[in-house]
Every structure is written in C-alpha cells, then in structure tokens.
C-alpha cells in the first residue's frame, strides 16, 4: 500500500460541483454497513498494531 493517494496537501475548504456535493450528502445520509472486506482489513490492521 504505497502512496496510493493524490499528491496534494490539505485545503481547509474544498469546493466541488453542486452535483457532486448533492451526491455526497445523499450517500452520507444512507446507512450502508461495512463490507466483509473492510472488516477483514481492520481485523488485519489490529493484528499488526502493538497493544496500546
């Protein structure tokens, strides 16, 4: 998992199209449970994390 994200720094405020904003709001209001893949990755991540 190397450097998979965009090469940019943080912006305090990001402007997107109204259409994209509407899609984001719509998706955020849905309840979508985590997938098995996500749960498995988190379980793997915890195995690698030192006890805290």
């Amino acid at each position, binding site marked *: *998992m*190397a*450097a*998979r*994200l*965009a*090469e*940019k*720094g*943080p*912006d*305090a*405020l*990001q*402007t*997107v*199209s*109204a*259409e*994209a*904003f*509407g*899609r*984001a*709001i719509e*998706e*955020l209001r849905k*309840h*979508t*449970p*985590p*997938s098995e*893949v*996500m*749960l*498995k*990755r*988190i*379980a*793997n*991540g*915890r*195995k*690698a*994390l*030192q006890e805290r």
Partner: protein
Amino acid sequence: MSQIIVKIAPLDPTFDRGAFRCGNDFIDRYVKKRCLGDHALHKLRAYVATQPDTPTVIGFYTLSLTSLKPGETSPAEAQEKFKSWAIPLVYLGQIGVQEEYQRKHGIGSALMTHAFEQTLRIADIAGTYGMMLDADNDEVAAFYEGWGFFRFGAGEEEQIKMICPLTKIREALEVA
C-alpha cells in the same frame, strides 16, 4: 501474510525518516523534508509506524481537517437545497508503506485502522461526517472502496473524491 507488530505514533524529530521509500517520489521527499515542519505547525498531523524499540519509519500517513462546499451556490441556497451548506471531514492526505514491507505484513491496514480510530476521536471532539481522500486513478479508488469509501465526483485536478462515512467507520471498528 507474515505478521509483524508495529507501533504508530505522532511524528517527532527522534524518528529516522532518512531511508523512507514507498515508491512515490513526491511522498518520499515529503516524508524526508517537509512533513516534520508541517506537523510542528499543526498544518496537519503526521503519524509514523515503526517496529517496537526502533526509530526507523516504515509507514506514514497524514490527517487534516477540511470542509466541502458546493460551487456556484450560496450557503443559503445550499441549506435550502441540500439541508447542509458544508460537509466537515477529516482528510487523509497521504499514506505510504516502506517498499520492502508492502502487501505482506498488514502495515497499510494498521495505518488505515489507526486513521479510522483517530477520525472517531475527532468526531467525538469536534464533529465530522467521515474521512475524505482524493484517489489518483480508478485502480486506487477501487482499492479504497474496499475500505468503505464511496466516490462522489472528480476534483479540480480530475482526481476521484471519496468519502467513508463516520457511521460506517464506527460500526466497522465496533464489529471487526
């Protein structure tokens, strides 16, 4: 997968970043030259993974805060149309794992899990709707869909904007 144990902690000058190499020149240079300064200024927070009792950085990610707003729409119009004029989010700006540790030790998963845990803490302290990132391309976006992110549009530089909702992060951390 051969498991190794890592410790993830906020960056400080005692960590050895000199040999960090994740395969992306921009991030490699950033880790070596600029991230400590940005971290010290609280422009963002950088977290590093090391093996216990060693200072050598083998993984890295950054978090900062951002808000999304709709273009060409006044706050009042956005409130009327979307019932929200901005979306507060935690921004995952960069993430990388040292080349020889990639894809076999769970370090990337440990970094993402830690980032989700930090996002939950931020949500409880200051409020956020979830975690956002900009994926460079479709392959990267598909990878992060596996981490619970949805796509909602291309950014100004044609990167793919993605969000993982806080509700999903919370549920995943409780259930996994």
